[in-house]
């Protein structure tokens, strides 16, 4: 199956509803659409967060996202994938990221969406800097994100 893929790294906000309509397009073979939206929280690691600034590596970021989506399309039967990741300064409850997957059946769409998010968290070059009352600080990578991504390495998970 050929998968329609659209990836954007942008400062502008996005309209989830419009994106999901566009994802389905006129493809009447699609029976399932799954999406994840990441938001800026007003607190993190015990501190109030007034703003968050996302930095990325232009060129590498798009390439990394393309590779992640291509791997998902190899593992699962997907009609379409949409990924949007914002950069620049954001505030709660701004939207940061959208991952949307469309497939004939929900299993493929659910798993592919989770896989893309887990890999994005560990392989796509984005970094968050958050402003707190004590000053600004870089968000540290979490071991739990590595663990979440590692579960897809287990043989047999690509149902």
């Amino acid at each position, binding site marked *: 199956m050929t998968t329609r893929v659209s990836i954007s790294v942008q400062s502008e906000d996005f309209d989830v509803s419009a994106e999901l309509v566009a994802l389905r397009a006129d493809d009447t073979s699609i029976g399932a659409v799954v999406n994840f939206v990441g938001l800026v929280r007003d607190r993190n690691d015990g501190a109030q967060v007034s703003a968050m600034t996302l930095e990325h*590596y232009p060129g*590498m970021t798009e390439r990394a996202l393309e590779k992640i989506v291509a791997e998902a399309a190899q593992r699962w039967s997907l009609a379409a994938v949409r990924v949007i990741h914002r950069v620049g300064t954001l505030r709660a409850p701004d939207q940061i*990221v959208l991952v949307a997957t469309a497939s004939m059946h929900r299993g493929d769409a659910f798993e592919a969406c989770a896989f893309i998010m887990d890999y994005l*968290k560990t*392989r*796509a070059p984005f*970094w968050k800097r958050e402003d707190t009352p004590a000053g600004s600080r870089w968000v540290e990578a979490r071991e739990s994100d590595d663990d979440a991504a590692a579960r897809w390495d287990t043989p047999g998970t690509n149902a």
Partner: protein
Amino acid sequence: MKLELRFFASVREALSCDAESVDVPAEVGTVGALRDWLAARGDTWSRALGAGKSVRAAVDLDMVGADAPLHEGAEVAFFPPVTGG
């Protein structure tokens, strides 16, 4: 061998530098050797890239390990573990 270096996030801030062209000796043939060579430049470089620091690298826009080979004109980036999403 000439290389184009890029630095991001906390590594960029620690070095007060986001990009630099360097000419490294022939024996600096891998990403790990380049990191060691840069760390030996002085305290600032050692604090940002020295052993024990959690730093990732990319060559020509692909994330790689320390034993990845370098080539003439490569773009080599150093940055902390990623935190997007």
